[in-house]
């Protein structure tokens, strides 16, 4: 069986789902799952050794014949799409149920199928015009999904920022594809590495796809969009949709020649996004915004790997490039898995308590043990701690960077700073997620909303369990995933086909298995030993204070205060303070808010300035006829002067 019929089946079921989803929720769920499973099978077929699939249509759409292609690179991202799409569809059944959201739930289902369909088309289409059409559809579906809850003002404004940013990126993509079509003589896409004149187009693609991928400083839409969207939409946006940007960069750096400075720029952007993204995350008080900024960091990690690969291409196909690239590709899957898991957990907390502010929560482990467990697992994975999957992919990227450094070539000057910044970003990630998990789940409830929480249902726990299993599997048995990654690396650059793992993945997997077993045994044994000796419960040490209160616990802002001080130059917090006055002060206020710095401090004032300039220019358009005639005469005189001065035609 070839991937073709499977893909057709997926297309048909998802298209039917768009129509059916508005009415019949159960049928829709079945159709979506069938579609995603068949898409997953098609992709796995290609990844596990089947030849690339290609199809050209007999009919034309918009003047161009439809040309679909499923090769290693597309298949990798298609697996991620199917995984995220299926899990999110199951999650949405209880999270965004018909019962609680009667008017937006049907819309949500239809747009979900449409989004899966358009992302699948983006991944398989091999024609510039159709790529743009699919990309635009995908962006629109994203907008409608983000603004499902459009009664709230911040959701609407988040949707607007997303739409505007997305279209700004699409402008660059229009420029990219049309220039490509003009230079190659047709809209058809395929490997064209020989035509070296196409190299400068890479920068257009980098910016265009970069807005969707969300690296610093093009990430301005990401935090508010992912924070304000419904959690299953945030999961698919963070887990899958931003990887479409990565797909674009990876695909077109593989098919087209790349300028020699590209590797340096991409590694630099990756390292900067990693460090600054996680610094922003650590200072957040809203846990979904924290997760969104953490996505910026992980995109940075992926870009470090891709940049190292591009550097290796220009430095004689070095082996370290393949290693780093393999790490980046595996991180695409890993991030999709653990970020979706974290967003599902966050959605569960939001569903139960109704608030996104960490400083209002606390002690939720008692009532939401499953969510707490899954969130901790996700936190361990995102902090790249052994024995989970985050460590495996970052380890591969590190090995690539270290090999580049020890090779002592010019590329080492990019690898060494990148490795140092990656280490700092990793430590900050661990800190951010220790903070998030601890603030939400540990200690005592800080306010009333946290006392009345309840655990989520099986329909929400199931997808979380599935994603947790994926994280653990990739962590414990990374050697199983190596052939897939190697296939994709070979598909990206045929000269890099290699079957042997250049890194000791088998040993690492064995160590991880041993570590996991020992950890579980040690925890169980210590718990039993504690019980065997004698276990007593008592109050937390409060230094003899007479009336300890739950509000005295460390808040998320205090936890992040030290690092927020170090990064104050980029975080630019807004502070409002009313000091306590008098001998018996009634109240004191200290508010600190971290804005999205690039948006609020740079793009905001620039746009205001542009608006002011345009408003002043508008005064020229006042409707008086005499002045319009004067403008025409003035233009003619200016033209005459130009001609007089010898301005040649």
């Amino acid at each position, binding site marked *: 069986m070839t991937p073709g019929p499977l893909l057709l089946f997926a297309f048909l079921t998802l298209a039917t789902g768009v129509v059916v989803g508005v009415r019949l929720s159960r049928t829709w769920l079945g159709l979506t799952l069938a579609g995603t499973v068949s898409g997953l099978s098609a992709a796995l077929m290609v990844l596990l050794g089947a030849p690339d699939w290609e199809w050209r249509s007999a009919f034309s759409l918009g003047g161009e014949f439809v040309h679909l292609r499923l090769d290693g690179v597309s298949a990798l991202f298609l697996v991620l799409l199917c995984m995220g799409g299926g899990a999110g569809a199951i999650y949405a059944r209880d999270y965004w149920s018909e019962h609680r959201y009667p008017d937006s739930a049907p819309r949500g289902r239809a747009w979900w199928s449409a989004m899966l369909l358009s992302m699948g088309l983006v991944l398989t289409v091999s024609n510039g015009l159709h790529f743009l059409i699919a990309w635009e559809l995908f962006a629109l579906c994203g907008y409608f999904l983000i603004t499902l809850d459009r009664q709230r003002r911040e959701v609407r404004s988040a949707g607007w920022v997303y739409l505007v940013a997305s279209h700004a990126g699409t402008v660059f993509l229009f420029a990219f594809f049309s220039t490509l079509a003009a230079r190659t003589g047709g809209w058809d896409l395929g490997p064209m590495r020989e035509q070296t004149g196409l190299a400068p187009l890479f920068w257009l693609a980098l910016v265009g796809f970069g807005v969707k991928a969300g690296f610093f400083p093009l990430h301005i839409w990401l935090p508010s969009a992912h924070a304000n969207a419904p959690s299953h939409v945030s999961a698919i946006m963070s887990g899958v949709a931003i990887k479409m940007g990565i797909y674009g960069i990876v695909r077109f750096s593989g098919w087209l020649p790349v300028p020699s400075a590209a590797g340096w720029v991409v590694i630099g952007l990756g390292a900067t996004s990693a460090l600054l993204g996680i610094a922003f995350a650590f200072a957040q008080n809203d846990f979904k915004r924290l997760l969104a900024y953490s996505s910026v960091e992980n995109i940075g990690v992926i870009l470090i790997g891709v940049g190292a690969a591009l550097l290796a291409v220009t430095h004689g196909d070095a082996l370290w490039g393949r290693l780093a690239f393999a790490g980046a590709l595996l991180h695409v899957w890993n991030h999709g898995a653990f970020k979706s898991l974290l967003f599902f957990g966050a959605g569960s907390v939001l569903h139960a308590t109704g608030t996104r502010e960490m400083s209002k929560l*606390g002690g939720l*482990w008692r009532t939401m043990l499953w969510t707490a467990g899954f969130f*901790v697992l996700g936190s*361990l994975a995102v902090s790249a*701690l052994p024995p989970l999957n985050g*460590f495996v992919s970052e*380890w591969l990227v*590190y090995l690539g960077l*270290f*090999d580049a*450094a*020890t090779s*002592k070539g010019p590329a*080492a000057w990019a690898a*060494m700073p990148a*490795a*140092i910044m990656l*280490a*700092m970003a*990793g*430590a900050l990630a*661990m*800190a951010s997620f*220790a*903070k998030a*998990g*601890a603030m939400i789940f*540990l*200690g005592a409830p800080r306010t009333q909303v946290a006392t009345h929480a309840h655990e989520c249902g099986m329909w929400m726990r199931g997808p979380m369990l599935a994603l947790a299993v994926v994280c653990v599997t990739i962590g414990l048995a990374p050697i199983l995933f190596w052939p897939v990654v190697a296939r994709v690396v070979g598909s990206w650059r045929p000269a890099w086909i290699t079957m042997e793992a250049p*890194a*000791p993945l088998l040993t690492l997997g064995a*160590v991880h298995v041993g*570590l996991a077993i*020992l*950890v579980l045994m*040690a*925890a169980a*044994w*210590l*718990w039993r*030993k*504690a019980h065997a*000796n*004698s*276990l*007593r*419960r*008592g*109050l*937390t*040490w*409060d230094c003899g204070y007479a009336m300890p209160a739950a509000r005295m*616990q*460390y808040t998320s802002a*205090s*936890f*992040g*205060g*030290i*690092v927020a001080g170090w990064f104050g130059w980029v975080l630019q917090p807004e502070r409002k303070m009313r000091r306590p006055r008098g001998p018996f002060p009634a109240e004191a206020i200290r508010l600190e808010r971290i804005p999205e710095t690039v948006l609020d401090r740079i793009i905001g004032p620039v746009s205001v300035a542009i608006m002011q300039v345009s408003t002043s220019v508008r005064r020229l358009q006042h409707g008086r006829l005499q002045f319009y005639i004067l403008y025409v005469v003035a233009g003619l005189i200016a033209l005459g002067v130009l001609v007089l001065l010898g301005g040649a035609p």
Partner: protein
Amino acid sequence: MNLILDLVLRLAVWMLLAPLLPGIINKVKARVAGRRGPPVLQLYYDLAKLWRKGVVLSTLASPGFVAGPAVAWVALTGAAMLMPLGPAGSILSFRGDVLLLIYLLALARFCTAWAAMETGSAFEGMGAAREVSYAVLAEAAIIAAVLSLSVQTGSVSLVTMLSPSAGAGAVLLAAGLFTVLLAENCRVPFDDPNTHLELTMIHEVMVLDHSGPPLAAILHGASVKLLLFALLLVQAVLPTGKSSPLVAAGALVAGVLVVTVSVGLVESFLARLAFRRVPLLLTTAFLFCLFALLVAWKGGAE
């Protein structure tokens, strides 16, 4: 069979010798202060006593409060297994094991911070916040040191990274790694292990509410971590690769003793830094390791 014997011997060496180090440090501090001080074997007695005692759990704590120290201990002992013991090598050595070691230490830190936050106390929260924040700079320094060793020897595996002779940047690396040792093991000038004021603690306050066997696991893990860093420092700086096993082992033991006594002397003669100045000292450690990296780079490029 040989492998099992090797593993048992190694575990014995690490687990039984590690608690000596804090004892030596306390003895040095006491002698400098003109006291006699606790016996060098005090930590052994403490561990035995704690192992027999019962546990008091906070009403707010979940089972994670006891699981945290267990996982941290396993992570630290695992990292110790990866650290080569001079000519005896390590139980398992593969390309990239140094990165696994660094991230196992990070896992231990996460578990300690998590267990600290379980109590819902502002003191522990403060300690956890400080610990994870300063760890960012300490990680940068460690990675720079590992990069410098890697560039010098051309390998990413601990056994080959640490055995050849020291490079020209050995002094810089020693200074940087010693400062990192002080930071990671919560010694003066970063953290005073003898202070009784919770507001001035980092590590001590994170383990404030622990008792009984979990506390024993934490104290033992901390001593294993100290021995790990001391061995890393000694092997990174001393040229033990070319000499006979006996001489190398002797040099290692002597080196660890020198490091331990130096830690004791530093604790006796320096005061703890104000917290706002800690980033400056950590940045200095990072710059030492960075310049060691550049010296190693230049040494190879010649």
